């Protein structure tokens, strides 16, 4: 069900939420967090709401969408409440602020009265994010701040901002997209021979924040020389090679879908390694509401990474 509340205030929204709950039964009970989505008004909103709804099946939440409208218009708040079939396992409140209400401080002021009592607050910027999310008006309300450098107009610049402005509680979907790669590499090292890694090579598209972050993670975990090189072809992260005395462990994904795992003395193995969608990543992010120390350390580890210029061809690194 979708209820439109044109030109209203947050207390009217709150009143309506209670009314809807009384009418529809136990709607808002059992919510575990409030997810605040900060975006500009426009077509991107629906994609973000959809991702939040699908994540809400795992993490029942109240979703507040702060859609900033025209700044030059007269100040007005248009609200919309979605419950039931239109909201997955969540309840969605869309707040469209115009004029003065499109400013950051005013936006945070509209969000505040709608936060669930006692429950953690997560802020998510599906597109452009503030330079320092933790100092943003909405970011300050939240324990966890999720950004996505890849969705920014200039991914490398956004990623650089994340690195410079990182505080505990921030994460970027760039990091989430690496989880399956990291899991496979860690699992590969779980089994004998337990040789130390002597060198590492990470290669991917020239503009690929995930590739940078992978290099940072390896540098900080392995404490060896890690080289980040451009890949000759392929999307995003293409290759990771860990050199060991007994031979290298290689994970290669030339086509963005299927990975190949090579280990000395073992047959080549193919593994499904498709790039993950935003809903999937968001669900993983919401699984953890405490700061991700390893992410922070990996960002810091980037300074230890050395840069290669020669493009690496996937599949012929030996």
């Amino acid at each position, binding site marked *: 069900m979708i209820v439109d509340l044109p030109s209203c205030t947050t207390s009217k929204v709150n009143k309506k939420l209670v009314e809807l709950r009384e009418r529809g039964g*136990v709607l808002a*009970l*059992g919510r575990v967090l409030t997810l605040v989505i900060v975006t500009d008004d426009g077509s991107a909103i629906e994609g973000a709401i959809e991702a939040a709804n699908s994540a*809400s*099946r*795992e993490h*029942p939440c109240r979703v507040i969408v702060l859609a900033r409208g025209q700044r030059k218009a007269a100040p007005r708040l248009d609200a919309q409440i979605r419950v039931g079939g239109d909201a997955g*396992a969540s309840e969605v409140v869309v707040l469209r602020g115009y004029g003065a209400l499109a400013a950051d401080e005013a936006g945070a002021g509209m969000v505040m009265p709608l936060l669930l009592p006692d429950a953690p607050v997560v802020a998510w910027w599906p597109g452009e994010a503030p330079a320092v999310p933790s100092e943003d008006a909405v970011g300050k309300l939240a324990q966890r701040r999720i950004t996505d450098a890849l969705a920014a107009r200039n991914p490398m610049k956004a990623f650089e901002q994340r690195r410079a402005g990182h505080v505990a509680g921030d994460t970027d979907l760039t990091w*989430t997209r690496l*989880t*399956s790669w*990291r*899991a*496979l*590499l*860690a*699992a590969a*090292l*779980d*089994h*004998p021979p*337990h040789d*130390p*890694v002597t060198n590492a090579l990470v290669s991917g598209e020239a503009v690929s924040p995930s590739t940078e972050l992978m290099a940072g993670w390896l540098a900080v*975990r*392995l*404490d060896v020389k890690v080289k980040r090189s451009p890949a000759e072809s392929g999307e995003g992260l293409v290759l990771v090679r860990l050199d060991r005395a007994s031979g290298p462990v290689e994970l290669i994904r030339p086509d963005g*879908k*299927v*990975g190949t*795992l090579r*280990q000395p003395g*073992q*047959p080549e*193995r*193919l*593994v*499904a390694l*498709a790039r993950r969608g935003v809903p999937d990543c968001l*669900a*993983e992010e919401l699984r*953890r509401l405490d700061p*991700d*120390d*390893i992410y922070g350390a990996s960002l810091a580890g980037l300074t230890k990474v050395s840069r290669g210029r020669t493009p690496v061809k996937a599949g012929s690194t030996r």
Partner: protein
Amino acid sequence: MTSGRRGRGRASDGWTNPLRDPRDKRLPRIAGPCGLVIFGVTGDLSRKKLMPAIYDLANRGLLPPGFALTGFARRDWTVEDFGEIVLDAVRAYARTPFRQNVWDRLAEGFRFVQGAFDDDDAFDRLERTVEDLDRDRGTGGNHAFYLSIPPGSFPVVLKQLARSGLSAQHGDQWRRVVIEKPFGHDLRSAIELNEIVNDVFPEESVFRIDHYLGKETVQNLLALRFANQLFEPIWNSHYVDSVQITMAEDIGLGGRAGYYDGIGAARDVIQNHLLQLLALTALEEPTSFSSGQLREEKSKVLNATRLVGPLDETTARGQYTGGWQGGELVRGLTEEEGFDPKSRTETFAAITCEVETRRWAGVPFYLRTGKRLGRRVTEIAVIFKRAPHLPFDATMTEELGQNALVVRVQPDEGVTMRFGSKVPGSLMEVRDVTMDFGYGTAFTEASPEAYERLILDMLLGEPSLFPVNEEVERSWEILDPVIDFWAAQDTGPDHYPAGSWGPPSAQQMLARTGRSWRRP
């Protein structure tokens, strides 16, 4: 529930995986290189539960690259036929969306071996298949054998596994066997079965699947009790009046005569599921959630569990008769196909236990299970003593029952609390209300199936959710006197109409102490 040595990234030789860190909670546990062989691959369980669970695990990226799945059955199938069957099963029953990319990788590891259980040649072919997999897929000599077959066939299959060398473990490699209930039909047969299995596989390589223990709500019971301050202080005989554990099904036994006739509800459900649920409800706090500690606490509480007598007053059994159930005309047990018209197999069983510890002194644990009952439900209800009602007189609390905390295991997983609340109005009147936590409504779609969890734990060698030998034998020891007592009776089981909550004797069994069954 536990993060074994793998979780901490420490291997047996003291080596620590530098890529793992206990703070890095995102990194999932992926099973090491391995393969799974399923016997009885044409069965219902295999199609509806095992195959979809394996696909779901692959889809979540939790199976090792190069994972191999081998089917063994009498059917004259090719690998492609086998792949088709798995594909159909996955499409029909998998929990996660179908992804061609994931499926293609998984299907590369399919193998099929045709043969009967007494066919030496077939097992030799299976041995070669497994060897080839080590070479082509890099399964590293690690193989699990899932016996999804009637227990009658266990001895011959296990003997074949030993003869063909399939069960032999070399060095770091592992071989594991997975068996499903029933684990015997009384203490003697359980010991026999364990001997047969342990003859071929050492106890640490045996995984007994009780899929109830893989359910999220059952694991949540431990979180509810031990992660919260709210419940544990009242979790004892000081405040608890009684505990009722129910597992009811609304379906009958049509088509299951071969297995069920002569076995009955007590053996089928109470011995394994209900006594395990009792153990988890009553156990003391383990010092850690490692499998060893948890198992120790479970053993302790099962060792302290006794039947309450006299058995003719504290137990009840029944058999459903035909009639209208929920708008459908159903047959009674004795009219079901394949059942002896004079069958005395019970389809409803209820027993009373007590746990002889200081914590539970004097608290009865009522366990009941049945087919063709009111509705399908599994729950643990902890019923509290009445408050002394000091400030209220009797008329004010007439409608107030006992407080209760109910853990709903299935369906609609969650927790319900029942307590008294003032009825609006000028009079002081207190009536029961419920407060509900719906684990089910919001989480089910994303929470893994019990089989996923159990198969993954087995491949990782994490035994915490699997009952061991000792627990199985102890459970039979508890239950055997009831079965013997019932067998010695000239009459019974009592009849109950399909769709009701059991025979009148079940109500009487509680009424004797002034209690009554909760209607779930």
